[in-house]
Structure formats: C-alpha cells, structure tokens
C-alpha cells in the first residue's frame, strides 16, 4: 500500500510519515501544492493524507483535481481548520474521511486502515494479529477460527488495538475512540480499565496468543505473546 502525505509543516509531515512507515506502508511526501500535484500525476497511490492549507494553493483544489481525474485513490483530509464548513466541503468533494488537527497518531493510522478497508471490494477485509481476526463491518471476531462474543464497547476497544498493533495507545485516545469527543471525563479511566480487563479475559479464555499490556502512566499496548 502506497500513501502520499501532503503537509507543509515539516515536523508533522515527518511524524506522519514515520508512524505510517511503522505500519508497513510505503510512504512519500509532498510539502506544497505544486509538488503534490506533480506526484499525484506521476505516481499511483492508494491513499492521500491531505492538509487543506498549503503553500501555493488549497488542499480542496487538489481533492477536486483527484476526483476530476477519477483517480481511484482514497483521501483523508487532515486540517487545522476545525470548521464544519471545511469538513462538509471536503466530504462533498469526495474525501473519504476528515481528521481535525491535532490528532493522535494512533487515530490517524486507524482511520487510514479503515479507509483502505472500505475501498471498493475491500469491505470484507479483516484485521488480524496473532491468531485473532476481526471483521469490523460485520462486527465479528474469531480466535483460532472460533467466534468470540464481545459487547459493543469491548469490540470498539479491541478494534482500536488491532488497528494499532504493537503500538502504545493512550488512554485518552481510547476514550475518544469509544465514546466520541463529548464525553471526556477522568472517571472514564476506570471504565476503560474494567472494559480492557474484560477483553483480556475473553481473549485469554478463547486461547488467543495476543494480550493487552498496560504501559504505566500512559496507556496500553497490544502485544503478541
């Protein structure tokens, strides 16, 4: 899978590239409007991570260009402008998803994986790690080929971990991924903790060779035993 990162801020661009490389993607980057257009014309990508405010032009113009040329490429908009207008405009122009800055890197890779999965014909694509396989759209989970029942919240949590295997995921990121943006109280930590305990138990009982490990003071990490 090949991804083009279009972002003018060097630090952020490097971070995004680095984190995506860890996910085994082939990553290229562009820092302004013109070089981005050149790369899109010259090469084929599976996904474009697109900043809206770019030197030399608007990311939205790049998006319309991509859609006009009917390029079969997924687009994730990453914008500092957290305005509804931009989001609506971006999605109207055919972006696959929208992520407002600042975002968690784990959230970014989860979104990109989700976008790629949703691309034509890929909706049945599963996430797998160790002997655990998950079909997010069918809400199905198997361990060693056997179905395992998880409730909705547990499923969302495990989905997030499977999207970011071997990566430390922050507690707050987990809370946001499960509850959305509006419920962000410290009380949630206890809830997340007990949910993770349940997931761990269910995985262990099913004989999974993966486990969720606590990273002291920060969050959790999905590891292969």
């Amino acid at each position, binding site marked *: 899978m090949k991804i083009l990162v279009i972002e003018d801020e060097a630090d952020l661009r490097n971070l*995004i590239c680095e984190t995506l490389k860890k996910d085994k993607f082939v990553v290229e980057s562009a820092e302004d409007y013109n070089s981005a257009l050149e790369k899109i014309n010259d090469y084929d990508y599976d996904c474009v991570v697109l900043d809206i405010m770019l030197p030399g032009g608007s990311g939205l113009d790049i998006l319309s260009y991509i859609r006009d040329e009917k390029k079969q490429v997924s687009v994730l908009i990453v914008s500092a402008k957290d305005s509804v207008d931009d989001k609506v405009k971006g999605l109207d122009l055919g972006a696959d998803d929208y992520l407002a800055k*600042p975002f968690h*890197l784990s959230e970014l890779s989860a979104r990109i994986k989700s976008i790629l999965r949703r691309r034509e014909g890929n909706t049945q694509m599963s996430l797998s790690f160790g002997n655990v396989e998950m079909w997010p759209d069918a809400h199905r989970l198997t361990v060693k080929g056997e179905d395992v029942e998880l409730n909705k919240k547990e499923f969302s949590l495990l989905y997030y971990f499977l999207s970011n295997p071997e990566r430390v995921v922050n507690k707050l990121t987990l809370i946001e991924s499960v509850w959305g*943006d509006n419920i962000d109280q*410290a009380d949630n930590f206890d809830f997340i903790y007990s949910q993770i305990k349940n997931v761990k138990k269910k995985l262990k009982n099913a004989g999974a060779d993966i486990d969720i490990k606590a990273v*002291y003071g920060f969050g959790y990490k999905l590891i292969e035993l």
Partner: protein
Amino acid sequence: MKLIQNIFLKITVFVSLVFVVWGVFFYFSIFNEVIDETDDILKNKKTLIIKQILNDPEMIRDNDGAILSYTVTPLPDKKGKVSFKDKFYNSTRYVDMEDEDEPVRVLETVFKMDDGKYYQLRLMISTLEQEDLTEAIVLYTFIMYILFLIVTFIGTRIILKRSFTPIYRLLDWLNSIVPGKAVPQLANPTSVSEYNELNSAAFKMAVKSEKAFQSQKEFIENASHELQTPLAIAMGKLEMMIEDDNLNDIQAEHVGEIYETLNRTVKLNKSLLLLMKIDNGQSGDMTDVSFNALAESVTGDLSEIYSYKDINLKNDYEGEFICHCNRDLAVILISNLIKNAFIHTPPEGEITISISDKRIEVINRDPENKPLDRNTMFSRFNNNRFASNSNSFGLGLSISKSIADLFGLSLEYSYLSGFHHFIITKKLNRSGNSN
C-alpha cells in the same frame, strides 16, 4: 421612561405650574382693577354729593338707593383730630327686599360744613355685580386653562414625536447590528443637522467596531488554529517517544503526564474554537432534532461510565422536545448538562430528566446542599464547584448557554430544596436561529 414621555411630562408639569401662577396673578389683577374702578366711582359720587350738600344743607339726609346709598352723620367736635382722608373697605348691607345681606364697598370720609360742623359721609355701593364678574373671570380662566393644557399636550406630543422619529429610527438600526455580521444600511433621512451628524457618527462607529470585532475574532481564530499544528507535533512526538523501549517507568509516566496536559490544552483550544463558532452564529446544518433521543443516548453512555456510582436515574418523558437546530451542538448542549449531573451526584444519588414538548429539566440533588452562584455559573472560566474537576475549565455550562442562545432556547438554573434544576425552554421569539 421614554424620552418623549420624559420631555412631555416635564413640559406638562412646567406649563401647568406656569398656568396656575399666571391664573392666580390674572385673577388678582382683574380683581384689583375692578375694586379700583369701584373706588373711583365712589370718589366721584362723594365729590358730587358733598358739593350738593354744601350748596344745599337740606340735602343732609340719608339716601337709600338700590345700588348706591349713603348716610350722613354729624360728628362730635374734635378739632384738630379729624382726618379728612378717604377710607375704603368691604362690608355688607342688609337688603329688605331680598331679606339678606349683600356685599358692599364702603367709602367713609369727613367733610366740614360752612357752619364749622363736621359730618361723616358713608357711601356704600353694591358689589354683587363685581362678584358675578369675578366668578365669570374664574370660570373662563379655568376653561381657558384646561383648553390651553389640552392644546399644549397634543401639540407637544405631535411635535416631539415628529422631532424624535430619526432618533428612534437610529435606535432601531443600532439594535439591528449583530456583532460578526455586516453593518446594515442606515436609511434615516432628516433635515436636522445634529441628527445627520449623529447618523454618520453612529454609522462610522458601527463600521469601526465591526472591523475591530472581525480582526479580533480572526486573531483568536488564527491563534487557535495555528496552535493546532504545534500541538499535533508535540503530541505525535510523545506518542513516538513512548514507543521507545529504552524508557523506564518513571520516564514513561512523565511522558504520559505531559501527553495528558497537552490533551487538556487541545480540549481547551477546541472549546474556544467552538465558542467562537457559536458566538459567530455559525450553527452549521439545521435539522429537526429530538432531544429525547439525544438525552437517551447520552444517559445510556453516562450510566455505563458511572455504573459504579449506582445512580438512580429517572426518565420522565411526557412529550417529545423537538428543536430545529444543529445536531452536533445539540448533543454538546444536552450532554454537558447531564454529564454535570452525573459527576456531581454522590453515589446512590438520584437524577431526574424530565422532558415535555416545551421544556427539558435535568434535576439532581446537591451533596453539599448549596445553590450555585447564579451570577457566575454561565460565565467563562468560572471557578465554581462544578468546575473544580481538574479536567474541566468551567466552560461546559458557558458553552451550553451559548448554544441555547444560538438556538433561541432559554437555559435557566434554579435551586429548589436541595436540588439543582437546569431547565431548557423554548423562547417565544426564536430570532436567534435564522442562520
């Protein structure tokens, strides 16, 4: 009190007083004039009568006319002490015909006959007519007074109203200015130069403050937006850092703390941007939103999170509260209120959410039995007890209030016998949701 009423009242009081003073003065002037006139008649008569008596001593006798009567009485000898000065005074006289006393004006004087004897002449003239005259004067003065007042009232009212029309037009225009929106056209034609100056001054000021507002808004917006990228970088670097296996537990904990602090900054920044958006009247897509469904989903989530508190949640849905508004903002509005209730209700406490088609009420008991400070609870960065949580900035209620205002809803707080009540009602005039 309106300016017109104010001026009108002052003019009315002033004119009434002036008229009263003038009326009294007018009455007494006329009255004195009449008495003067009477006294002049008496003097003339006196001269006439004394002349007659001097010519013909036979005439020394009383005369009892209907209008004018006189008596002549000889005075005992009192040489040197006699005053020849005329003396006027009011008195009464008994009239046989009508069997009553009638008012008279009296002139008393003394004259000396040729034989050296002194006589006192007492002339009386009836002042019945004079009384009639006085009455007539009072009556007409009074009628005129009333007429004058009425005319003055109506006149001043009309004049004031006409003169102040431009002021009221200007006021309407000023009221129509909404911060963040273009300054509307000012059509207020008038020939009065002060009004014209006022118009142009007001217009200039509106344009200026609109510009200042815009630039300040843009500044805050840009500052908040510009913060997003550095924050994203800092958070990303920390996420990278925590992946480093060489970190020991203490370092990892520090990274975690920094990450959480940054996250709070991100939330604060987002809240500010949200407030900005609401204050700008950007409400996004409007649809008919059922608050019942929102409340249900929010309480569902919160009940799960706070299940350890074992809160007794009562849903009292009498009707469906539907508001034409933006769904995302409606979620924030209602979830802030319900979240507060969950956070601040002690374990095994009770929360009641009652919804009818006209109002939503979120009720919970206060563990400390103290009402919140109504004056500051909706203000930003308010450090009340509701904001004591380190994860909160005291913006929640303020955001809810701003959203309610934006949607033309009213959000009120009341404290009844130990219970906090947060009440959302529909305002009759829903002008706030035009966009």
